[in-house]
């Protein structure tokens, strides 16, 4: 039996031109992979499932590029009305800049005023620093709630309490940002080195002291990085909040659209674009400095 195999190895075709060196490199047959068929079936099934989901989504959203092509005239009219932007200082640019500043303030206060609540919940919701499993579960639930409710819903709720205006926007951002930032902070707290905290536990330091001198100083750079990122996001969120009456440039954009002043709208959008570039660059600069 073995004689049958032998000649097959010997008669292995050798390319004369390239194999000047007589010896072939050592080879070893790859062991039979039993899971190969199963793995391929799984991949195939996953592909089919994903395609089906997308077909359902396309039907559910009336997604149809043909309609967009047919309706280009409406878009062209809209853009034609918007150009050139209305650059009247007194009636458009100055109010736009003032409202943009309000938007920036909403984003700033919404971020910084959520630091205490986010920090408290992050410490309670990180496994390494939480004093009790119950406190861990409860604070996780609170964070999930604040994260799940969109800031725009919070804004609508607060408008009923404090009326239309930027204050409602600030309150809405504080709530939503507590949920998001608390979660992000808790995660970076769990990922950090627990050694210093453990070391302090052997010195007789209290739990609060262990966290304050062992864990928190380690995560300060990550916390500030996430804080800047959230500031960036919150300034953009406060734009949308303006649309539901929480003041700022979003409110002016909404008014311009409702009164068909598309050239005014375009000016406001350009101002917003500049604000977002400035905030993005500034927070990026600070984060790079911190990383060093």
């Amino acid at each position: 039996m073995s004689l049958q195999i032998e000649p097959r190895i010997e008669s292995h075709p050798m390319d004369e031109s390239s194999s000047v060196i007589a010896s072939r490199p050592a080879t070893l047959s790859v062991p039979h992979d039993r899971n190969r068929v199963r793995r391929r079936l799984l991949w195939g099934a996953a592909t089919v499932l994903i395609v089906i989901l997308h077909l359902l989504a396309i039907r559910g959203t009336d997604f149809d590029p043909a309609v967009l092509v047919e309706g280009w005239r409406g878009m062209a009219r809209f853009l034609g009305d918007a150009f050139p932007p209305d650059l009247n200082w007194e009636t458009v640019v100055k109010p736009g800049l003032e409202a943009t500043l309000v938007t920036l303030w909403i984003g700033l206060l919404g971020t910084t005023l959520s630091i205490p609540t986010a920090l408290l919940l992050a410490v309670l919701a990180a496994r390494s620093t939480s004093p009790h499993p119950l406190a861990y579960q409860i604070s996780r639930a609170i964070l999930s709630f604040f994260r799940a409710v969109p800031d725009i819903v919070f804004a609508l709720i607060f408008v009923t309490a404090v009326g239309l205006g930027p204050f409602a926007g600030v309150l809405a951002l504080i709530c939503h940002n507590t949920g998001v930032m608390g979660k992000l902070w808790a995660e970076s707290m769990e990922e950090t080195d627990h050694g210093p905290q453990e070391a302090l536990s052997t010195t007789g330091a209290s739990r609060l002291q262990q966290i304050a001198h062992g864990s928190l100083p380690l995560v300060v750079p990550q916390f500030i990085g996430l804080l800047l990122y959230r500031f960036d996001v919150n300034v953009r969120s406060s734009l949308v909040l303006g649309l539901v009456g929480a003041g700022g440039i979003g409110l002016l954009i909404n008014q311009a659209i409702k009164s068909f002043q598309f050239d005014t709208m375009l000016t406001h959008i350009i101002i917003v674009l500049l604000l977002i570039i400035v905030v993005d660059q500034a927070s990026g600069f600070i984060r790079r400095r911190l990383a060093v």
Partner: protein
Amino acid sequence: MRDSVPAPPSTPARALTVTGLAKSFNDRKVLDQVNFHVNRGELVAFLGANGSGKSTTLKCVAGLSAPDSGIVELEGTDLATLHGRALIESRSRAAMVFQKIHLVPRRTALENVCAGGLARVSGLASITPVFFSRQLREEAMASLDRVGMADRALDKVGRLSGGQQQRVAVARALCQRASVLLADEPVSALDPHAAENIMELLSELAHQENLAVAAVLHQPDLALRHADRAIGLMHGRIIFDGPASSLNEPVLDTLYSPERSAA
């Protein structure tokens, strides 16, 4: 019942006594009837292969791991009889130094050493180094001076070398006012020169400052040169306890013999 009783005068030098220590992880015996003591003024080296129970022993003494049974006495006080504040106070008489050093790199050496004295500071003011008292800072400076790091007090720990960081960690233990120093592989992450220096420091603290030092070591030659006594563990049992000078080839061969099934 025994908390108010001072250490028996017959054993004044005995800083740490461990009796019948046992510990299992998932039915695997890690420590099995471990008995030993460490006197003041003595450097005891703990030797043994990986998984022999050396580190677990120190962790049980420091309170980082809970033994299944056994008695840990610090300065004559059985820790099992204490609760709450009294337990924390008694336990803080033993300080621990780690292989991975476990300092906060972003803070200064001084701030890290001050953290060793946190148990003596109470209230909300103790959560930031800004409010550390002058007395605590000066005590921390003296501790840093003791380990030869006073001139680097205001440097961030992350900028120091491994050996210097371990010195700062020892200073933190001194600032804790401990009488027992537990060192869990204090030199395993250091180069040979720094390792030698740290061992010299530990031996000085034992012989000049009368501390009881228990150090888990991985290099028998360091134990031979610096330790007064050596304790050898195998499969969670003490199989050698004698003067470091009596560590000879047969003993070491047994200690580090190819691992037999511990189950």
